[in-house]
């Protein structure tokens, strides 16, 4: 049986994102996914919701990316033991999201990998925290004994395992990596994440939309601006809010500064992991300079609660403009010097080239997103593709590299710094006047809305449904790391163990963002 996208009845959602929404049966969902996967669509996200109290049942939400627009579907099961089609055959990255949806809501995906993903020991196997009849007594219960996670075993002459984490040697987030190696060569890497699972989605329930903004900004601290923006867009879609032009420009300025800060930090870290501590010293100095300008202009080094539903929190003082423009010019000059050094440093280039290759074909198959995708020749950037204002006024999204190795991911970061600096300059020299925020009205009850923006790591999506009393019924913040962690398992194959920190850093994925 066949089904085309056009056979379904779609409704365009209000707001700045080009999103079409439809309620589809489970059979239609599978056929639709088959149709769009054949046309090169990517899976963005998949999550579940308990809507039994509203008389609906269990809902599976799927978001698909058709390059210039998004599709948002809801499929319903009324069974107490809800089953949905396994989408991981079409979109490999669906696997972990399905496992997480099982852990949190008890959804079954027929024939799919049924190992737990987010659940280790914090709640029982047959308890589902995002079901509304989840027993609150579990809250005070101590963690259960940790179950043995069934890693896939590699066997053979000389093959052995190296277990790393959850606590790592550096100042990074916790997670477990199981390497199967022969000598130094990695045959297989299997990740086990979920260590920082702190029940963020449950925490959203019952918050006001204003309170939710603060939580959204703390899903993954390094992408606070992107999350706050995506969340605000979802609220604005539910309230038909028109955000003032000045607020949009300031949002983009904040997002680009977040991109710059992270790219600078990563370039230093990647250099350091390849043995050039000079790079770390220099780039962390530049990052610190940027954070200090943030503190001068916005009153905080990290811009956690600057984007709010309806606009932004802080207006730019006239005195801020020269400070910002001067610091951007200084940064451009400094980065150029360092790029020249990186590009011509034989030792560094020797480590970068050919390390952690993610081929264009594999990146496509796995549905990789963001800067990692662009380093594997996949031109995709929501800022440009979805024409999200104010980015529709800029020529961006052209950064691309072909190699798919560490060198390519470094090159993309350098190019994106240049692009970001240009966007910042453009925003500042042509800053619209007027208000920086408007009051958001009453949220439409029970409707599903999404917001999304291209953060520094990749596309960040927030799904939101608000109840009639104005409280959040369900909020799902979605990190691009869901889509890129599996790619790291492939990129490391055949590399040597000592190159793992370098390759890992070149992806720099979020644990907290996907652990939720």
């Amino acid at each position, binding site marked *: 049986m066949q089904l085309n996208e056009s056979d379904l009845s779609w409704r365009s959602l209000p707001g700045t994102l080009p999103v079409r929404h439809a309620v589809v049966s489970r059979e239609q969902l599978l056929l639709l996914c088959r149709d769009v996967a054949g046309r090169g669509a990517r899976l963005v996200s998949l999550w579940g919701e308990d809507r039994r109290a509203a008389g609906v049942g269990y809902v599976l939400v799927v978001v698909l990316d058709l390059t210039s627009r998004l599709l948002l579907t809801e499929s319903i099961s009324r069974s107490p033991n809800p089953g949905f089609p396994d989408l991981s055959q079409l979109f490999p990255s669906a696997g972990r999201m399905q496992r997480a949806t099982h852990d949190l809501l008890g959804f079954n995906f027929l024939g799919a990998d049924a190992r737990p993903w987010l659940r*280790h*020991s*914090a*709640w029982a196997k047959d308890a589902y*925290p995002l079901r509304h009849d*989840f027993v*609150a007594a*579990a*809250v005070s219960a101590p*963690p259960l004994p*940790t179950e043995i996670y069934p890693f896939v075993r590699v066997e053979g002459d000389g093959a052995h395992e190296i277990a790393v984490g*959850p*606590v790592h*040697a*550096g*100042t*990074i*987030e*916790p997670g477990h990596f199981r390497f199967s190696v022969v000598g130094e060569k990695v045959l297989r890497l299997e990740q086990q994440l*979920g*260590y*920082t*699972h*702190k*029940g*963020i989605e*449950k*925490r959203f329930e019952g918050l006001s939309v204003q309170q939710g903004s*603060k*939580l959204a900004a*703390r*899903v*993954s*601290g*390094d992408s*606070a601006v992107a999350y706050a923006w995506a969340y605000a867009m979802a609220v604005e879609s539910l309230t038909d809010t028109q955000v003032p032009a000045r607020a949009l420009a300031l949002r983009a300025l904040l997002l680009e500064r977040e991109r710059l800060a992270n790219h600078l*930090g990563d370039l230093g870290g990647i250099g350091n992991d390849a043995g050039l501590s*000079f790079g770390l*010293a*220099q780039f*962390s*100095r530049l*990052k*610190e300079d940027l*954070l200090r300008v943030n503190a001068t202009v916005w009153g905080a*080094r*990290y811009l*956690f609660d600057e984007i709010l539903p309806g606009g932004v929190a802080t207006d730019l003082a006239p005195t801020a403009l020269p400070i910002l423009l001067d610091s951007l010019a200084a940064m451009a000059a400094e980065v150029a*010097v*360092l790029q*020249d*050094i990186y590009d*011509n*440093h034989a030792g560094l280039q020797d480590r970068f080239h050919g390390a952690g290759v993610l081929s264009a074909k594999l990146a496509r198959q796995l549905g990789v997103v963001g800067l990692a995708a662009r380093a594997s020749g996949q031109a995709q950037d929501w800022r440009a593709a979805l024409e999200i204002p104010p980015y529709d006024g800029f020529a961006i999204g052209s950064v691309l590299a072909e190699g798919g190795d560490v060198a390519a991911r470094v090159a993309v970061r350098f190019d994106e710094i240049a692009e970001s600096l240009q966007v910042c300059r453009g925003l500042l020299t042509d800053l619209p006047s007027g208000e920086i925020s408007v009051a958001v009205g009453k949220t439409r009850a029970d409707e599903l809305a999404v917001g999304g923006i291209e953060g520094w790591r990749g596309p960040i999506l927030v799904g939101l449904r608000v109840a009639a009393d104005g409280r959040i019924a369900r909020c799902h913040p979605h990190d691009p790391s869901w889509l890129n962690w599996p790619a790291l398992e492939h990129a490391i194959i055949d590399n040597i163990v000592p190159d793992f920190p370098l390759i890992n850093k070149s992806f720099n994925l*979020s*644990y*907290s963002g996907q*652990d939720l």
Partner: protein
Amino acid sequence: MWKILKQIVRTGLVTEPAPNAEPRLLEHALHADIHRLFGRALCIRQVDAGSCNGCELEIHALSNAYYNLEGLGIKFVASPRHADALLVTGPVSKHMADALRRTYEATPEPKLVIAVGDCAACGGVFGEDSYAGLGRIANVIPVDVTVPGCPPTPTALLQGILAALQSPTSRVDKRSASTYQKTEDRG
């Protein structure tokens, strides 16, 4: 190589004095304190017990040239067995509670625990009543000093670390004494 040297010379020294003290005096006093207590550099093991990774960004900043943590005689180490102090971010997720406890146990006495950030101090936006979290660090291991902030600035972090060391009632002193006492008793 020439370009690297040129850039190093051009950058010069950017390290700033440590906060809240006469710079030279503080540095000397601090070195003396650290040396008296540990006989070498103060070694810190950082543990993320479930944070959003915001605090980690500012902990990274401590090592940049402006704050130059190593210049103060303080360094980050890769194992709790090498550590004198744990710098812990939170909230503690239930999935990390065991790893945190074991890290604490693996750290030799005398040891300091510095809880970093609002979530480590009180659960922060993630709260203390979650099915998946245990809230503040002190709910899982003993804490000596708390550094609030979301995230705390590097200056606040430095102040917290220095406070933990300099406090006349620092548990390190007490524990050194009690450890010593125990040894004597046994002897």
